[in-house]
């Protein structure tokens, strides 16, 4: 990487990560194209605000990568992200660690979610379990009572709601990608 503004370099790293699933020729080409663009659009000594303005205009790296994908792959990808969420939440409740690990691997391979969303997905089940643990220690004296049942239910509902939201994002983005572009 030649002289790039730190934020531009970060953007490029993000693009590199997201373009991993593209065929190698397209991947190399788009990385070089965007790097050349950024090296001209953002001077290395530009202010962070200026750099951010340019990067905002560039759009989300995912859009760039989506523009290079062919359709059958996209459908496949959305399906895999779905499977990831199923493994993570439903599977984790039944088979625990094994299912959760598969879910996490699939999730991080997904091209439809941002890094932040992937972390949310990863921490969903452990988070719900932890929340439940903390709560159930508090109510240990009173034993398995209604409060504890409510806490379990609540933790599960929150986990399902978040997973549902991630699934919604995947569908939305999957459709956006599958739609014919100009």
């Amino acid at each position, binding site marked *: 990487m030649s002289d790039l503004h730190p934020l531009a370099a970060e953007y490029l790293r993000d693009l590199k990560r997201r373009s991993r699933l593209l065929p190698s020729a397209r991947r190399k080409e788009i990385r070089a*194209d965007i790097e*050349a*663009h950024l090296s001209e659009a953002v001077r290395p000594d530009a202010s962070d605000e200026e750099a951010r303005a340019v990067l905002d205009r560039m*759009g989300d790296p995912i859009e*760039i990568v*989506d*523009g290079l994908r062919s359709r059958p792959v996209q459908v496949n990808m959305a399906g895999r992200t779905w499977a990831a969420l199923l493994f993570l939440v439903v599977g984790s409740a039944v088979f625990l660690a094994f299912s959760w690990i598969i879910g996490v691997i699939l999730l991080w391979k997904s091209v439809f979610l941002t890094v932040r969303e992937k972390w949310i997905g990863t921490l969903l089940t452990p988070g719900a379990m932890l929340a439940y643990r903390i709560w159930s220690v508090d109510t240990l004296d009173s034993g398995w009572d209604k409060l504890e049942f409510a806490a379990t239910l609540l933790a599960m509902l929150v986990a399902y709601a978040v997973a549902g939201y991630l699934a919604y994002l995947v569908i939305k983005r999957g459709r956006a990608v599958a739609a014919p572009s100009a």
Partner: protein
Amino acid sequence: MALIEKEPRYGFEIVNLLSGYEGLVISEGTIYPLLSRLNREKLVETEWRESESGPPRKYYDLTAAGRVRLFSFRDEWLTFRAAVDSVIGGEIGREA
């Protein structure tokens, strides 16, 4: 494609020209996948040229097939625009 009809241009130049038109480009980055597709469809060809400052630049130029496509697209577009103008009507239609 119309932007490189008269002379080859490089990516950054094309993006900047397109961004100059209000309401046309939402995400500048998506221009590159588009150029890449045109290249794969042999509608444009690329050539590396030295620049006075910095590394060589990739220039895009229309191919013969690209020119044909551009002409037929212009034709379709004018027909389409005329149709929309007359359907929508009103002041805008009459002005155009």
